[in-house]
């Protein structure tokens, strides 16, 4: 049950989007987020939609999966839209009842915000759908590398992420085991109010914590045995090369950015 949680939600499919260099993909996602905020007209929104849909199609990820990624955000999107509809003041009043007024600007703002949020979620979930956690940490490490000169521990951050990803399933399994063990001794995790249930988790968390420290100690020894001594002088199995797909995606990204910015400036 607990181990069913798939982390990072990576879908190993053979597609062009999957093959783009993770560094490029991370940067493109950042740019995309900025560009989404530039959109404020039919044309620009149409452009963003066109771009997003083409990427989803190219990634061969099912639309239903992408829509599912919106589900946890649905509440936030609706709330933002509602607040915008009812609490934006404007001159053109569409509908009013006593003190409640709905203005045209309000509706436009609501639609704007909702669309932006939807595109943001779709864009960023595509990153994790099409990039394996290892590639992602790898990409982050290499992107942060230039900052190590000013003291940012880029290698250590990436190493921590790798180990965390590696140990999440192990710790979930262990949690399940401890819970079963405590249940067999009469522990009750299901009844009572929130405070009572939180308290019931203490006998699970304490052994879990102690075991994690033991694991950390053993892992550190095992890593030393395998000659780990930090990031210096380390090489990698996977070499990231700027390939033809990366060049192509870069051009598309540039065209998209230029169009968005020109349309924004021209107010189309």
């Amino acid at each position, binding site marked *: 049950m607990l181990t069913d949680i798939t982390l990072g939600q990576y879908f190993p499919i053979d597609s062009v989007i999957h093959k783009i260099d993770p560094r490029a993909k991370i940067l493109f996602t950042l740019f995309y987020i900025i560009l989404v905020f530039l959109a404020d007209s039919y044309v620009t929104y149409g452009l963003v939609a066109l771009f997003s849909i083409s990427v989803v199609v190219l990634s061969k990820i099912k639309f239903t999966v992408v829509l599912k990624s919106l589900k946890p955000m649905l509440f936030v999107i609706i709330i933002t839209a509602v607040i915008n509809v009812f609490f934006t003041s404007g001159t053109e009043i569409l509908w009013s009842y006593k003190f409640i007024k709905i203005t045209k600007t309000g509706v436009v703002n609501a639609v704007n915000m909702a669309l932006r949020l939807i595109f943001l979620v779709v864009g960023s979930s595509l990153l994790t759908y099409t990039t394996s956690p290892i590639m992602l940490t790898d990409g982050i490490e290499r992107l942060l590398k230039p900052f190590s000169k000013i003291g940012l521990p880029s290698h250590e951050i990436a190493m921590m992420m790798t180990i965390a990803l590696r140990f999440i399933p*192990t710790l979930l*399994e262990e949690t399940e085991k401890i819970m079963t063990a405590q249940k067999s001794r009469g522990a009750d995790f299901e009844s009572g109010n929130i405070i009572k249930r939180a308290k019931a988790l203490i006998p699970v968390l304490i052994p879990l914590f102690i075991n994690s420290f033991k694991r950390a100690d053993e892992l550190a020894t095992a890593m030393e*045995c*395998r000659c780990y001594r930090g990031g210096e002088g*380390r090489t990698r199995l996977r070499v990231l090369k700027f390939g033809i797909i990366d060049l192509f995606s870069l051009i598309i990204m540039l065209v998209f950015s230029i169009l968005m910015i020109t349309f924004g400036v021209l107010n189309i």
Partner: protein
Amino acid sequence: MIEVKNLSYFYEAEEGTPEKVLDNINLKIEDGEFVAVLGHNGSGKSTFAKHLNAILQPTDGYIYIDGVSTSNDEMLWNIRSKVGMVFQNPDNQIVASVVEEDVAFAPENLGVKPEEIRKRVDDALDAVDMTEYKNHSSHMLSGGQKQRVAIAGIIAMKPSIIVMDEPTAMLDPIGRREVMKTIEHLNSKYNITIILITHNMDEAVKAKRVVVIDSGKILIDNTPKNVFKNVDMLHKIGLDVPQVTMLAYKLRENGVNISDDILTVDECTQEIYNYVNKG
């Protein structure tokens, strides 16, 4: 070659006198040997193992790996890449989520070139017969498979010696068999020196030489046949002998005159057969 000279080790106690764990150990292990180190819990066998690749350094005495002392801090990484170490719990040795990424960890640390890492990873996975799992997620594997991945992770360093600290203790019988097969394969085919720390007698029998440690001292150092003859002495320090050896021992006690160095079921059958035919 491993040379242990007058090795003693004390654990720093928080209060009171430091505790002596290893007491004047002398030992010489040649290249390509398969040595089992036996001892019950707390005998100091794991502490001894940790000395072989400089995870611990001797309080007294010396350990030389191919003539280099483990107390020499400048040669630390050199020694660790030469003497690989596999631990009990495979879960706590695997660093990366994907099998081949994990095997690549050690050569990456050593700064090996990417093409060479690729080759080493493929060779190492082949040596432990895990090639078909190279793109699998490590947590989906069985215990025995995980331990073989951990061994592959060590082989990728190209060590000449591998120390195994109870590598089968947390595995099911199938996993044990897989791992033991891998260990024997590494010793016979790749001529890697194996030092197997264990308290499982049936595993110790597979070695060519057995060293018994008790209270930090070497008690016996001989072939399995000569070691397991001493049933009474092994019992006294809390160790068992293989089941068939025990059977032969009991039979001898009851006046059945068969050999006293039986280690395998086949040998035992043969001896009893001969005895019955003679009688």
